[in-house]
């Protein structure tokens, strides 16, 4: 489970170490490419939604309420006669924007905290990490839903709430490898050359711990998408009528006794994306985890 740093870094770091490491990690376990393909395809569908969606996702057709698939309503219509397929495509935009924005935010803040804690160590490290552990112990969905409920369910607030709940995990992930990388010779060399702490952290620590943060990022992106859907299902998502996958499941669930298929397509959509991201992260993690290296 633990993610620690590589045992065997090349003697002279390649020109673009992070890119080099990333591609090597992808090649080590081919299933991560499958995860990447799923993710890229969903992203493309979301971006191209305005051109490929057969209907306006908000357009209500009172003559076609709760219909099973017909004509160019490929997945049928919902309670208001809106095209489910088009709503799915537009819903992907919301899921991805919230997921990516909150993950990037948490990744940046969490990594900064983790690298600083690992780099400076001592009391600073202890205080920071104890705080992170306390945040980590609190049920993140509860914290998230209370924050969103209090701040109001806008896109920005949802992003902030989800980011806040995942910062501690990124801090943990960034800290551990920082501690071992900072003891390596090239850091001593940098010090001897009079490099500043900032330069060493940004230019020399960060590229070396980047793969691990990236893996964590793909896993947490999956988690963020799941959390966004959960919040929307509870009623704390982006406000209707804007389509979100969680919101679509919430509406479908209200009609579950007579039209249970309403919940199926958004459910499958969430599953596919989250599964894709999970196998992406899983494959990458195997590749960079030194404990498992060389054993496949």
């Amino acid at each position, binding site marked *: *489970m633990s993610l620690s740093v590589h045992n065997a870094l090349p003697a002279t770091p390649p020109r673009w170490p992070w890119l080099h490491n990333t591609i090597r990690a992808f090649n080590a376990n081919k299933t991560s490419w499958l995860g990447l393909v799923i993710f890229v395809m969903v992203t493309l569908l979301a971006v191209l939604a305005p051109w490929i969606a057969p209907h306006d996702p908000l357009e209500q057709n009172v003559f076609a309420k709760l219909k099973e698939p017909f004509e160019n309503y490929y997945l049928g219509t919902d309670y208001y006669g809106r095209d489910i397929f088009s709503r799915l495509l537009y819903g992907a935009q919301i899921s991805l924007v919230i997921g990516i924005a909150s993950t990037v935010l948490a990744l940046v803040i969490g990594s900064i905290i983790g690298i600083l804690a690992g780099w400076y160590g001592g009391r600073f490290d202890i205080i920071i990490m104890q*705080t992170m552990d*306390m*945040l*980590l*112990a*609190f*049920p*993140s*969905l*509860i*914290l998230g*839903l*209370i*924050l969103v*409920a*209090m*701040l109001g369910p806008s896109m920005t607030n949802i992003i902030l709430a989800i980011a806040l709940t995942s910062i501690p995990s990124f801090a943990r992930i960034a800290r551990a490898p920082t501690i071992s990388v900072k003891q390596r010779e090239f850091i001593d060399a940098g010090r001897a050359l009079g490099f500043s702490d900032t330069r060493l952290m940004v230019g020399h620590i960060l590229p070396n711990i980047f793969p691990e943060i990236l893996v964590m990022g793909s896993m947490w992106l*999956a988690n963020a998408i*799941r959390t966004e*859907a*959960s919040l929307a*299902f*509870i*009623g*704390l998502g982006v406000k209707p009528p804007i389509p979100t996958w*969680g919101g679509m*499941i919430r509406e479908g*669930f209200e009609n*579950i*006794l007579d039209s*249970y298929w309403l*919940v199926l397509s958004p*459910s499958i959509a*969430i*599953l596919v994306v*989250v*599964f894709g991201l*999970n*196998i992406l992260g*899983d494959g990458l993690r195997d590749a960079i985890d030194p*404990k*498992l290296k060389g054993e*496949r």
Partner: protein
Amino acid sequence: MGAFLVKRMLFAVVTLFAVLTLVFIVIRIVPGDPAQVILGDQADATAIAALQKRLGLDRPIWEQYVTFLTGAIRGDWGVSLVTGRPVIREILDVLPWTLELTAVSMVLGTGIGVPLGVWAAINRNRMPDYLTRIGSLIGLSFPPFVSAILLLIIFSLALRWFPVISGNRATPWAWFQSIMLPALNLGLIMAAYITRVTRSAMLEVMQEDYVRTARAKGVPWSVIVWRHALRNALIPIVTIVGLYLGILIGNSVLTEIVFNRPGLGKLIIGALNQRDYMMLQGMMVIYTLIVVVVNVLTDLTYALVDPRVKLS
């Protein structure tokens, strides 16, 4: 061992205070006046002032903090703004439902997850390993409300094996029927997680020297796996089971909603919808308490599982 426990207890108390402080801050950093938020935009100034007084919001912040902390410790968590009953009573009324669900789910999750993880680890890079890895990744990809709805569609609507609405304790059979689906939902997701942790913990332990020694001595394979290796792999597993509780509580909120089951989940959603600010504060306190208590229990379990802990 005594010193270890005292240290952990002290840490638990510090955590409790820190998180209570966090709860206090979170409720107060909200933009706008809570009284205004509760009463809505049309409320007049007198009503807002009256509610502020009732909530103690007109007093200085440090005084509110002291009142909140002492209240939290004494079990005086204020009065629900919706029902007028003490918050602690409302919470204690539904707490057993959530505890029972969480406990059954944890048993299912570890009971399924640990053996599967061991099975995957001893069959490394063979079919059982691939199957459990894919299976657990799929399990991890399910948002808990999606899996709950699917279980509901399959077992309650299509097969009619279980009631649609859960939360019946009339007879043992009714109890079993009503808890089985929600607990299975939480338990399977947890098992997916535990399987992976067990697998990697076992893989690590199986490479240890004493496992090789035991094999060389001719100790039966099953004894090596279940007694020697698993015993040592249990330490990280216990940590994860303890840490997982936070996720389990979050997941149980969603599960309780789908199965329309009484519990903390339904209570917190009701409080959110009705802006019952006192109730929310109380619920965050109870969640904190649960987490801190479980952390202490996890530490106790360490001491039981790992004799080395007694020395530190």
